[in-house]
């Protein structure tokens, strides 16, 4: 990872500078007419939170790169809006009308005022077996061995990432539905200025090689990526465990278990403390916040919106003589954020919560051998 930071970040710095300086230019290019349009309104409503007001990127990837917009068809953008990228943060927008989608596409085009490229409709015919070998040599480094794409959630200027431009997940069902063979071929032939994607012709590949590569990339559509299949809403929103111990003892055991895992308790408070009038809090509803730096840093790097669920939080409640431990189910994160990179992170947190719950509620029995 350090190597990547050292090698790639400096290489991509000029791009960051280019994007920053492009900001003013793009704002000027988007005319008053565009700004007041229905497309602008819809873009502000549905897209700008992630992609930025003028397509400069944020949680989502930047859209306002001239070479990007000049190499994708309107259909590509339309299908992307409709299907999103399952597991890759970009959500689908199935409820927008065709007219609304077209208006958004028109507005996105206004970022560069380029023309929509035309691609022949014919599929590319090539040898996927040969393409597989070429892919391993020329594409896998950035796009992943199985086309899973780069890691992260796009660029963010306030939080450095390993890569400012994400290599697209070529195996993503949304990408494969949106990108035609000829569009992929065009990108391979021409590359994309302002991104690490270089022309494969310039790299010495022939058109036949590129056709083989396209046919291999197209073959991804027969295999749904496993991590995308994991994006399911959990059965339960809450993890809960009944404690056999008293309320105070349960709290103490939770604290001890957290500490034994090398995690730090940030603070404890009564539920609603600071909101309900001081002194009227329910003394039998305690919230413990805990985390470690690596966990927090990893979570926010995978998706900056993870601050909604980090630091971790366990609520200990006693009601009618029953003591319970509860936490929001971390298995929901990947599906909520449409981010399959959070599958493993969510599973790790799930195991952590369960382990704390088990340790805190485990009933000690005297060893029989000694009785």
């Amino acid at each position, binding site marked *: 990872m350090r190597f990547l930071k050292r090698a790639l970040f400096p290489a991509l710095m000029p791009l960051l500078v280019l994007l920053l300086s492009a900001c003013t230019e793009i704002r000027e290019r988007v005319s008053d007419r565009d700004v007041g349009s229905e497309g602008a309104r819809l873009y502000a409503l549905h897209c700008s939170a992630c992609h930025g007001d003028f397509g400069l990127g944020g949680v989502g990837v930047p859209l306002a790169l001239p070479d990007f917009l000049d190499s994708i068809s309107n259909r590509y953008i339309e299908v992307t809006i409709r299907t999103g990228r399952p597991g890759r943060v970009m959500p*689908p927008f199935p409820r927008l009308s065709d007219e609304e989608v077209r208006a958004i596409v028109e507005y996105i085009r206004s970022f560069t005022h380029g023309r929509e490229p035309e691609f022949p409709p014919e599929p590319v015919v090539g040898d996927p077996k040969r393409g597989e070998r070429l892919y391993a040599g020329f594409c896998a480094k950035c796009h992943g061995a199985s086309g899973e794409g780069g890691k992260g959630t796009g660029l963010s200027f306030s939080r450095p990432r390993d890569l400012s431009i994400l290599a697209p997940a070529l195996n993503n069902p949304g990408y494969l539905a949106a990108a035609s063979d000829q569009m992929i071929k065009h990108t391979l032939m021409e590359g994309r200025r302002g991104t690490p994607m270089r022309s494969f012709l310039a790299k010495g590949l022939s058109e036949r090689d590129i056709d083989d590569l396209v046919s291999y990339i197209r073959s991804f559509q027969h295999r749904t990526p496993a991590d995308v299949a994991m994006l399911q809403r959990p059965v339960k929103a809450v993890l809960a465990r009944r404690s056999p111990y008293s309320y105070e003892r349960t709290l103490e055991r939770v604290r001890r278990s957290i500490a034994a895992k090398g995690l730090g308790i940030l603070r404890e408070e009564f539920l*609603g403390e600071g909101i309900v009038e001081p002194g009227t809090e329910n003394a039998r509803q305690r919230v413990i916040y805990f985390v470690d730096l690596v966990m927090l840093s990893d979570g926010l790097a995978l998706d900056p919106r993870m601050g909604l669920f980090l630091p971790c939080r366990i609520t200990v409640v006693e009601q009618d003589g029953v003591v319970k431990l509860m936490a929001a189910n971390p298995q929901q994160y990947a599906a909520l954020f449409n981010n399959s990179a959070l599958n493993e992170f969510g599973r790790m947190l799930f195991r952590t919560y369960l382990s704390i719950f088990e340790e805190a509620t485990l009933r000690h029995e005297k060893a029989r051998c000694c009785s």
Partner: protein
Amino acid sequence: MKKPAAAASWIGVALLFLISTPLWGGDLLMVRSQLPFPQAQPRLEEEIVALGYTLSQARRVDIDLVGVGFTSGTYRAISYGDPEEIKMLSRRYPELTPFLPLQIVIFAERNESLLVALSPLYLKAFFPQPDLAGIFMRWNRDLQQIMENVRDAPPE
């Protein structure tokens, strides 16, 4: 020859829709505000209070992150709620307590701010009790209004 493969691909995409569409049909609310963070956070707090909620102290999310390479020290979680409602709901539905009080996180992105919240409607599927449905709806409506007001606020 190509048609069955293409059809299979579209069926796959449609199935993935079924998995992910409802999750994005309002489960996560996110807006970008043109206000820089030092203006956006107090504005957000004003909007929450204007709807009659009580604020808790803002909580830092990015504790010590500068030490591990993060350049931003501007990430906060804002908790809020109605005091009596928190008491009543946590007593009646203890399993709702991991989601109480309500929360909006706000972080800086260049000179703008991003606001993210879990839509209370997400909870509907897990807490189907009839008396909660109206509460979730109201929370969601208020949350949307709060976030839209911050989104639409012009920078000073």
